[in-house]
């Protein structure tokens, strides 16, 4: 089982990763966006870290919903409502739990993805974070179906997200700010897909090591 402490460690890892990659994400966003994705995510997860102590004793559903609301009210831009929705929906799937199985995690990731797609109306292939989140879920599901353990399944999710992230490079953006570029969006990696891949990489690194 993945415990609440594991989950908190995962979030801490992600906060750390974002802080370290703030400039990198902003550089990606400079090429096809408006040069703020790194600062936005960093600001959001700094706020999340401030908020976490007050809910750390609660169930994972409450924790995730608090994260989601914190992101919505501190990030702004496209990233805020989308990541906010991801955490809020994932939180609904984790309602009442304080420890979770890999199947619970997958269900939460899938709920998050569905929420993002509903809010942002993007499907795969549009050069957005969906292109990292969606293959992450698919790879994790395939791994669990094959009987993989939590570590294996999360590693598959992270690899899937990273592959999806790289596959955004040749894509023509049709959603978000990059879509204004038309053909000129081709050849650049999507910043949101990149920050999403980092979220799954932290999950694999931290939660995969957990048991």
């Amino acid at each position: 089982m993945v415990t609440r402490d594991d989950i908190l460690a995962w979030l801490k890892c992600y906060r750390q990763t974002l802080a370290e990659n703030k400039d990198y994400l902003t550089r990606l966003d400079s090429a096809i966006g408006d040069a703020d994705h790194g600062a936005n995510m960093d600001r959001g997860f700094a706020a999340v870290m401030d908020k976490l102590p007050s809910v750390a004793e609660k169930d994972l559903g409450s924790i995730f919903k608090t994260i989601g609301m914190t992101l919505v009210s501190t990030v702004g831009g496209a990233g805020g409502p989308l990541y906010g929705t991801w955490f809020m929906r994932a939180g609904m799937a984790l309602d009442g739990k304080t420890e979770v199985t890999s199947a619970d995690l997958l269900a939460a990731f899938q709920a998050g993805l569905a929420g993002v797609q509903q809010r942002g109306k993007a499907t795969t292939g549009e050069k957005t974070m969906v292109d990292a989140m969606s293959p992450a879920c698919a790879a994790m599901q395939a791994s669990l179906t094959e009987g993989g353990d939590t570590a294996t399944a999360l590693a598959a999710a992270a690899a899937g997200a990273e592959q999806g992230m790289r596959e955004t490079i040749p894509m023509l953006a049709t959603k978000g700010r990059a879509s204004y570029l038309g053909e000129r969006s081709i050849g650049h990696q999507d910043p949101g897909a990149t920050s999403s891949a980092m979220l799954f990489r932290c999950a694999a690194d931290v939660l995969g090591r957990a048991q």
Partner: protein
Amino acid sequence: MKKLINNPADVVKEELQGVALAHGDQVRVHFDPAYVVRVDAPVVGKVGIVSGGGSGHEPMHGGFVGYGMLDAACPGAVFTSPTPDQMLEATKAVDGGAGVLHIVKNYTGDILNFEMAAELAMAEGIEVESVVIDDDVAVQNSLWTAGRRGVGATVLAEKICGAAAEAGKSLKEVAELCRKVNGWGRSMGMALTSCTVPHAGQPTFELPEDEMEIGIGIHGEPGRTRMALKSADEITELLALPVIQDLPFEKGDRVIAMVNGMGGTPLIELYIVYRKLAEICEAHGITIARSLVGNYITSLEMAGCSITLLKADDELLGYWDAPVKTPGLRWGM
């Protein structure tokens, strides 16, 4: 990065403190969540108008709060859409019982955040209408993308809708008018230099000394095409013709014309652009009935300009001429 700032993280907060100190007679600034609101809000019985967006476009939107224009504006981080809680609080603060219009520029972030805010406000019993402005002809419109960006027509929409709200029009009517302005307005911009986002610390893009970017966005988003620097007259044509061609402006039409500076271009150059724009309009049989030349919707210290034409009938001109009293636009009072 050469800027008159302290810590990049404090830019928006300190700017808002400056606005509050400079314009305390006209607006109040609420912090946490941040919004700028008319001192006399809510105006009972009047439709409230709220806009907002990333900071870095001053005077838009905070500088357009006041009599005859916006009731409140929500400033986000630099170039980052504000958050739903700001918009919700602003909406509540300006609701005088006649409902609230959200004027939203067409960017995914602005759309999503305003959407959430409108849901929350309606859940609290406030009638909300949202109108999306998407006037930038630089972006080739398509059913399959996020569509066109919202730029210069936003300023004109805020002025005109503000006057209509002041005149006692209903929420439905003001929203309809806003859609009419959006339907009749078109813009296009260009950059001579990049802007630098404070927390990014370096220019968003590199533009060689002999090149310019045509069709630039107000967040330094790359435009239609990069090309060799040209004369002001040629540049004005490159901007004005797509604007004129996109809308069925017809011989005899009147327009409100705006030549807007991006923040780093001096007024002397904007008048040179205006001169050519007037010549082009005349050649197309379009009469400039009203004009605005200056910095209204900027992109930090970017050098460059944008052109907006809004086809205008007696209704729009009447609202345009109505008194307005904001830090950024003022006449008639």
